[in-house]
């Protein structure tokens, strides 16, 4: 497909999709959202570029290659399980660290969030690879 409108729109739509992806990822734990949905949205951003240009170009413009995303995503998933095991809990038990920010605010970072990031990266990688394979055929 060779459409100027699509190409120009893709620049902004991708930005929106990617912001939405990050938003869904961060919102995840207690509200609808999370790594899987975030990953799909971010994958969609790449797909959009693929439709506007070609899938080959879309892949080449990714700074992190999909294979690398899958490998690092899966590694992060595995790493997120280690703190729980070290604390003698069941596998995938959530361990939370609190970072205080001033008086009433704090940031809670826990292993479920790290797990979500791993899922996020893996899903982006898988989405892009699948679309590339299907597009080649």
């Amino acid at each position: 497909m060779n459409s100027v409108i699509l190409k120009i729109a893709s620049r902004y739509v991708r930005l929106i999709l990617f912001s939405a992806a990050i938003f869904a990822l961060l919102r995840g734990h207690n509200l609808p959202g999370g790594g899987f949905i975030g990953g799909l949205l971010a994958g969609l951003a790449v797909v959009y570029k693929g439709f506007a240009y070609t899938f080959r170009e879309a892949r080449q413009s990714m700074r992190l290659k999909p294979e690398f995303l899958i490998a690092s995503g899966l590694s992060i998933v595995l790493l997120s399980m280690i703190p729980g095991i070290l604390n003698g809990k069941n596998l995938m038990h959530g361990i939370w660290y609190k970072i205080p920010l001033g008086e009433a605010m704090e940031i809670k970072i826990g292993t479920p969030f790290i797990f979500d990031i791993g899922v996020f990266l893996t899903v982006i990688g898988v989405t892009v690879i699948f679309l590339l394979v299907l597009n080649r055929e």
Partner: protein
Amino acid sequence: MNAIALPILIPLIMMVILMIVRNNKAAQWISSAGTIALFVLSVYLLLEVNQKEVMVLYLGGWEAPFGITLVIDRLSAVMLSTTALIGFAIAVYATKFFTPAHRESRFYFFFFALLMGVNGAFITGDVFNLYVWFEVMLMSSFVLITLGSKRAQLEGAIKYLALNLIGSMFFLAGLGLLYGKTGTLNMAHLAQILIDDRNAILMNTSAVLFFIAFGIKAAVFPLFFWLPASYHTPNITVSSLFAGLLTKVGVYALIRFFTLFFVQEPAFWHNLLLVIAGFTMVIGGMSASIYYDSRRILSYHIISQIGYMVMGLGIFTPLAIAGAIFFTIHNMLAKTNVFLVAGIIRKLRGSFDLKKVGGLFNSNPAVAVVFIIPGLALAGVPPVSGFFAKFILIKAGFDAGQYLISGVAILTGMLTLYSMIKIWNEAFLKAQPKEYEKEVKTRVTFAEIFPSALLAMASLLLGIFASPVFNYIMKAAEQLSDPVNYITSVLNL
């Protein structure tokens, strides 16, 4: 008991390693080592579960029925061990039977993804989690089937994917109804709720949906069309892997669901299962007899043999369920093995078509030996594993007064024997046809024949040590027929 999750985690770790390792040779060694680790672990779990009966892990510390529960009982442990042994054989086999172009497309990565899905399906105690593992299996097997991207392969792969996705939709629909009615998806909790539910007839809707979903996976009689349409297209390594594992996961799920919580209307379900078992056996066996392509014969045979497993479930006495489990294990080993030998024949004679090959008995007696053992096992000749499997099933059938299905099972044995003899005659005994003589090679390397020899040995040992194996499996079947222990262990009552 975090070790319970290792059958899922080991393949996951292997996938990460294989993403990083680019060297083919190294990937082969690492994969073989990974499958050995998996096998050692499964045997450890098998021995452990013999002591503890049911092992439970609450992921994330969320107790049942709220979180995802991993459960290993005797049936799961047996299936895990068999899967790991087949995984090892395939990992070694792939080193010789994948052309370099195939290896670059990351066979081993998706091989471990498939193993992860299969193992996950065997140990999960949660219906939705089972669905997730089914999807993991489906996606990785779709990639495996298309490796190489030949036209026939893609055609087979599309049929495979489309029909299995329909199965997934039935699964999801059944799951939704089940959740709507009971408010839980934990298998033990479902069993607890449904066992003394007066309105259990309402469960039949979702039971039927699950039956269709698993029936498609297991390739039973009216739902098997995806299997012969796709199994002869991919590389023979992939066909062997699928033949050993995929349909059996469907059978496992049927056994699990229809012993644990869909037990309200035995009169309807067990008769339906028996009718389907009979048709599956006969139609699979008869369809196999008209083909001359070894992969097609063996594909139809997978279907025929699934009938026996469903028959065991349909008779539904502890002995019959034990027979079904014994048959499943025996079939996984022997069926994978005959596919592996079909690959060796292809390598030596250049074809899967039995009319174009011959003379292997004289040129390669070792190949003849590794074929005849699983061949006889499938046909049910003592002292190899298949005889005891069929004997238990048919005895259970007579004990329960199910004479018709037992008779059908005996007659189907003849059809199996006929097909095995056909392959034996055509590929091994008759002389190599003159016009295809230039394809002939005679040298088989050790690594090529080792996986088949290993599985043939396993079939033989399963037959010789049938009594201790049967004792273990009988306990598994008793555990399934009386799931109180399972329910109390999982729900911590």
